């Protein structure tokens, strides 16, 4: 029901945007005539009344058909499925790396809040937050592509590599390195900062004093007792951030010409490819729901209180 509301809302919102696909195609053509504009609108059913268009679209979505892209003339579902794997590969890799490394950095820093490493983490976080991701990306390109010449510049894979071979997979990994590094740099900053603050908070609480009083080693106290509690905010933020995957990845995807959903969304908006935009919005709505579910499950995994509270 909620999803249906999302679909209707998206449709109405997008129909408020001035101009349509006929204007876009005419623009790309460098000219047009009335006949061609009418021809295009008729082809895509844009000449019909608004409520009919809406009803047709909702009817199709209910049957699992997200329509056909005006621009690529391909089923939207096919288009999105083709793009979702590169985006997930990029975002999940970057996010997982950022969470693991960021949390580790935060934990180490929290053990000596005024130590050298802690200051390093603070500075890293500041720089990570402050540096625009496209700038980071370009600096990485300058270093790795232009100067060291060890990384490829753009794309998911060299188009001439035969698909499915080992070389192909290695080439994808090779192409993945810089985008992931750029994207995780922003995430890394927030996670290390978050983990550090959260750990320091937890390390000051009563049960940690008790654990120390029991004579447990510092490593055991930190990683077994404190981390488990300190990681809850990290999970919350990770869940929220995952819902932003498209927006966060758009810039990185554009700079590296990564064929993901972010670029598809961005370009479709510019092109006025309404079915594709609505398809992507629909997909992201679903992803938000799924990720919220996963976040709740993760809470249960790390926090026994939540488990028992729900069971009671």
């Amino acid at each position: 029901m909620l999803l249906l509301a999302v679909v209707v809302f998206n449709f109405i919102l997008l129909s408020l945007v001035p101009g349509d696909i006929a204007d876009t195609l005419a623009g790309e053509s460098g000219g047009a005539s009335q006949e061609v504009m009418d021809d295009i609108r008729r082809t895509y059913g844009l000449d019909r009344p608004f409520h009919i268009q809406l009803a047709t679209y909702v009817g199709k979505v209910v049957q699992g058909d997200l329509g056909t892209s005006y621009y690529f003339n391909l089923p939207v579902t096919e288009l999105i499925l083709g793009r979702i794997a590169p985006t997930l590969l990029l975002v999940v890799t970057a996010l997982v790396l950022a969470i693991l490394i960021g949390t580790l950095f935060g934990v180490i820093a929290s053990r000596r809040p005024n130590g050298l490493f802690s200051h390093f983490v603070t500075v890293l976080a500041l720089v990570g937050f402050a540096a625009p991701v496209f700038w980071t990306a370009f600096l990485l390109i300058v270093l790795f592509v232009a100067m060291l010449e060890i990384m490829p510049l753009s794309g998911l894979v060299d188009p001439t590599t035969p698909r499915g071979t080992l070389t192909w997979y290695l080439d994808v990994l090779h192409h993945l390195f810089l985008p992931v590094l750029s994207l995780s740099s922003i995430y890394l900053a927030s996670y290390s900062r978050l983990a550090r603050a959260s750990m320091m908070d937890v390390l000051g609480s009563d049960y940690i004093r008790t654990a120390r009083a029991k004579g447990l080693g510092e490593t055991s106290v930190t990683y077994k007792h404190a981390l488990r509690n300190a990681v809850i905010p990290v999970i919350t933020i990770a869940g929220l951030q995952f819902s932003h995957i498209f927006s966060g990845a758009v810039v990185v995807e554009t700079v590296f010409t990564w064929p993901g959903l972010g670029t598809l969304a961005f370009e479709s908006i510019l092109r006025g490819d309404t079915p594709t935009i609505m398809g992507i919005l629909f997909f992201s709505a679903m992803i938000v729901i799924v990720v919220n579910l996963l976040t709740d499950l993760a809470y249960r995994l790390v926090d026994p209180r939540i488990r028992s509270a729900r069971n009671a």
Partner: protein
Amino acid sequence: MTLHDNPRSPSASPEACLDTAMHAVDNKSATFEDAGGSGANVQRLNPGLAADPVIWAEPKTHREEKMKKFLVALTSAAVALTAAAASAEEPKRGGTLTFSYRIIAGHFNPTIASGTPTGIPGTQLFAALLRFDDEWNPKPYLAESWDISDDGLTVTVKLRDNARFHDGKPITSEDVKFSIETYQEHHPFKPMYAPVKSIDTPDPLTAVFNLSDPHPAILLAFSSQLGVVIPKHVYGNTDNIRQHPQNSQDIVGSGPFKLKEFKPGEYIILERNEDYFLEGKPYIDRIVYKKISENTSRVIALEKGDVDLTAFESDAPVLDRLKKNEHLTLTPDGYSAIGPLEWLAFNTKRKPFDDKRVRQAVAYAIDKEFILKVLYGGYAQRSLGPIHPGSVFAPKDVNPYDYDVEKAKALLDEAGYTPDADGIRIRTTLDYIPAGGTWKRKTEFVKAQLKKVGIDVTIKASADFRAWIKTVSNHEFDMTMDSVFNWGDPVIGVHRTYQSTNIRPGVPWHNTQQFQNAEVDAVMDRAGKELDRDKRAALYGEMQKLVVDEAPIAYLHTSPYHTVFNHERIGNPPVDSIWGVCSPWDEVYIR
């Protein structure tokens, strides 16, 4: 008259080079632009030696100009000789060419869309009846010969007998008929084939076009992406060709390259058509067409040698940087058919621009040279009227509206727009096509310039292209910065902007200025039916004088488009045709 020509020889052949250079030396009266043009040609063959074409475009005193002309001619001759010796190498077969562009089209069927993203791969996949050299001369392509009857009402085209589609079926006059009819029905440029009443196919290799009026644009319309031949047996099976799946996948073409793979939004891979009708061609095995939308990324890819060729590069900092690279050559050649112009258009039906004197005042008040030098880094060329300076019909002896603040003020006074207490005469708005940062800067500059003559401008930025085109095509603007292409023949791309019969709200790039002038209409009408090039040129000369004086548009400059290629890798780059990269790349080879 019968036009019959041999297939053209490779452009970089020694003869061709010498010809150009000798022409420049012999013809002492060659215009400044002529000399610059041949120089630019030479530069692309041997960039290390040639002088900078940009310098030649700068205004000089008469004496300086004469001297320069002579020097250019001399240098051209010398450089051409060296270049001729250097390029005497035979084109090689094999290799992969990597081309990169900002955009990748959604499909590659030029019969239903005119844009260059469709046209560049489209002209590789599909052959047209004719091709054009860089001096506006038609050459045989799919057509072996062609004939225009004396009354200009019948055009007979003979096809070569060895041409086949990519699926092996022969290319016949039926396919030609079907293709041109598809253009008539679905292509955005209606005037292109409007006079074609019917097409007869007396035999499989002869197509006869029956025209309602003489149509001087028809030969040009038979070339590049404006006149490709598509197979009837593939595309004729639907009444909805716009959504035909084979517009983008499994394309059955007629051109030098076949579609191997298309990943929407990412890349296209084209492969040599082994059964191409021009023996021994094309030379390259494979074209990889990659989308790199980010300027910086594309620059690095070119510098590193990952990309061999790009086109339509227009950003001055990008061009500056690429120019410094010793492996790369930049050339403004190959854009004269597309004829891109950038201008400031007025809504002549709105106050105060319903008064010609106000429009002229605005034209005088803008320092065009500053725009060219500072905002465009010298990469664009001044344009003085409706027709692109690269055209044979380019404007001559029209009022250039040279920068003159006093004259602008005087005109405004005369029109009755006197300054108020704040020194402001007119409050108005300026829209601009949202096509990159330079447009925004240019708009800001014009605002500052007009302030000096007492015109207070509010800049209206559009969220995206569609929003802008909607505003302008529905006449909801005072002034707008625009970019419009000539598309080769004035009938196709110029008339539309000035014809009083072409004021059609909602349609992009009609006569959005709502300019109405019976005399201009009449002259264009005659020029559009005149087959004699000289007589036509005279008519367009007259038309442009009228239009420039009426000033529905303040003409600024050409688009600074450049083709950039790695001259160490590429031989015969596709720049020796008026169509540039939108012409078949069957003579390009990898060194």
